């Protein structure tokens, strides 16, 4: 049994860590404060080519395996989780179905520019009455001649207001529930497709999240992203585990950023004539945080390895997402205690990590849903 990263993965980790330290970390606070899409950083960072991380080299990607991709997700989230969400949306969910099912013309128009950062991608699942419960999706796609007509409103769409290309979940037959779901490609500029309300969020600021409105949006037949009709849920299952483990990796990124701040503070802050890190109760916090972060990473990277090896990973991915996110929530909380009242001041970073961590509770499945799902897998229906 070999738990080590390969020499190549270790090198990749070093490079992406340095890159994030140089390009993202110094801007993280400003991104959070302004809560605007960081266009300048987007251009500088995407120029490096990371948006093609998962895709084959022949089309300009890096062909990174899931373990290597998790290293990337963890590091970029350590830098700024707001920025990371925008980047990862282009890398994974926002382009996967375009890559998997798009025609060559669609790929040239949408996928390749999205891999270069010239187009911003998004995926639209959530609605005001549906999130984890996909079968409740009310956005409809109706065939009219050789076109599909999309109607509905999507909420909580990462990159939504700036999206050039949107992969939209819609039902072609509401009576079929989840079995009537399909993905459709909608491009910016299509009549009837428009951004709605932008959400003012507690954390993950800087990634612009909002509503997308589809009002009689007519798209060509080939914009159905699927080899067969009504297989949307099956296609989604192809990346579901990866999305969950990615969320877990992002949680470890936030946790690591907070932990590093806590460690530095514990060594420097003097109380009663000694650094607070010399007191047992503070030391105990680091022992617990480091142990749970290590356990989280073992779950994350073993689940990523299973995905890479095409082994069953549904349970492990859910476990990793839940455990790493809960660990992250504990770490950001403990760091605010280590920092004392300074953690409550907006001029320091611990409050940002504390706010950012909350969002990961919901993306990739709430923990209530995940526990129910895991319980069903373990006990049976």
């Amino acid at each position, binding site marked *: 049994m070999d738990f080590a990263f390969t*020499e*190549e993965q*270790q*090198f*990749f980790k*070093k*490079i992406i860590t*340095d*890159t994030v330290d*140089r*390009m993202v970390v110094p801007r993280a606070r400003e991104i959070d404060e302004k809560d605007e899409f960081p266009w300048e950083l987007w251009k500088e960072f995407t*120029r*490096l*080519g*990371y948006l*093609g*991380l998962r895709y084959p*080299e022949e089309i300009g990607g*890096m062909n990174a395996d899931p373990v290597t991709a998790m290293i990337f997700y963890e590091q970029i989230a350590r830098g700024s989780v707001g920025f990371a969400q925008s980047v990862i949306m282009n890398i994974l969910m926002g382009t996967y179905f375009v890559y998997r099912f798009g025609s060559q013309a669609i790929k040239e128009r949408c996928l390749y520019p999205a891999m270069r950062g010239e187009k911003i991608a998004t995926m639209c699942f959530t609605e005001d009455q549906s999130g984890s419960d996909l079968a409740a999706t009310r956005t409809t796609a109706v065939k009219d001649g050789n076109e599909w007509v999309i109607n509905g409103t999507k909420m909580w769409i990462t990159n939504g207001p700036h999206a050039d290309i949107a992969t939209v979940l819609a039902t072609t037959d509401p009576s079929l529930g989840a079995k009537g779901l399909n993905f459709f490609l909608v491009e910016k500029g299509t009549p009837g497709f428009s951004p709605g309300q932008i959400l003012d969020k507690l954390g993950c600021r800087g990634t612009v999240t909002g509503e997308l409105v589809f009002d009689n949006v007519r798209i060509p037949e080939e914009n159905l992203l699927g080899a067969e009709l009504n297989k949307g849920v099956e296609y989604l299952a192809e990346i579901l585990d990866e999305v969950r483990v990615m969320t877990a990796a992002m949680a470890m990124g936030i946790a690591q950023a907070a932990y590093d701040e806590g460690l530095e503070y514990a060594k420097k802050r003097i109380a009663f004539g000694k650094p607070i890190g010399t007191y047992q109760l503070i030391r105990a916090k680091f022992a617990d945080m480091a142990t749970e972060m290590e356990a989280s990473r073992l779950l994350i990277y073993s689940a990523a390895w299973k995905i890479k090896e095409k082994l069953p990973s549904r349970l492990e991915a859910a476990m990793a997402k839940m455990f790493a996110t809960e660990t992250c929530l504990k770490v950001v909380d403990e760091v605010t205690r280590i920092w004392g009242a300074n953690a409550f001041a907006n001029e320091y970073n611990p409050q940002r990590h504390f706010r950012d961590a909350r969002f990961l509770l919901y993306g990739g499945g709430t923990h209530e849903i995940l526990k129910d799902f895991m319980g069903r897998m373990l006990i049976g229906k």
Partner: protein
Amino acid sequence: MDIIVLVKQVPDPEALVEIGASGKDLNIEPKFAVNLFDEFALEEALRIKEKHGGKVKALSLGGPKAMEALRTAIAMGADEAVLIEDDAYAARDGYSTALALFKALEKETFDIILTGRQAIDADRGEVPQMVSQMLGLPHVGVVVKLDISDGKAEAVSSLEGAKEVVEVALPAVFTAQKGLNEPRVPLITGVMKAMKVQIPKLTIEDLGLTKDMAAPENSKTQIVRYLPPKKRPAVQLIPGEAREAAAEAVRILVDIERVI
């Protein structure tokens, strides 16, 4: 314009360093980085290549971990890299390092050798000058600007409070100072190339040197012992009016600390 960049893998500036029990060695946390000044050298080499053509080759002496520094060089845009792999030899004094690098450089063709003004671990800043001496080449140190044309270079050296402009015929050795440039962030295409590349290794014997030359007693300099830096005392606040406080500060510096 063929350029060779001498690169050293050094402990990460944030790595923990402790003096070993013997007092003659250091226990360093295994976190590594490319020597910062060598990154400036590498960036300058790449810029010269982009302007004048040619190739950039990175050369390092070190243990197996030094491979990472060379991969970083490839990721940034170097065409080739070579590692002289010998932990023990690399741990010796600057002369031994310079000798090994010289032996490797003798087999190469180049117009320019670029390297950092010093390595940020031992901070001795002696290897580049020794290499240039052994090669019989001119050396310009602490360079903050470098222009190449017509087989010669005009280099601006940073002196204390001044600058010196030096013209030198190529081939020559230059050492990079902070301010020369801003090293680039590698593109993913470079990272991918670096992840896959097979970097050739040379042994000390390949260079015509022998292992016993690596024995510590054969070093030209010997480390007698390491001393930890003096512990910084707590900040002393001098109360009172500015004029009296300043006079008291001078008194402490002159009479007690004896630093002025």
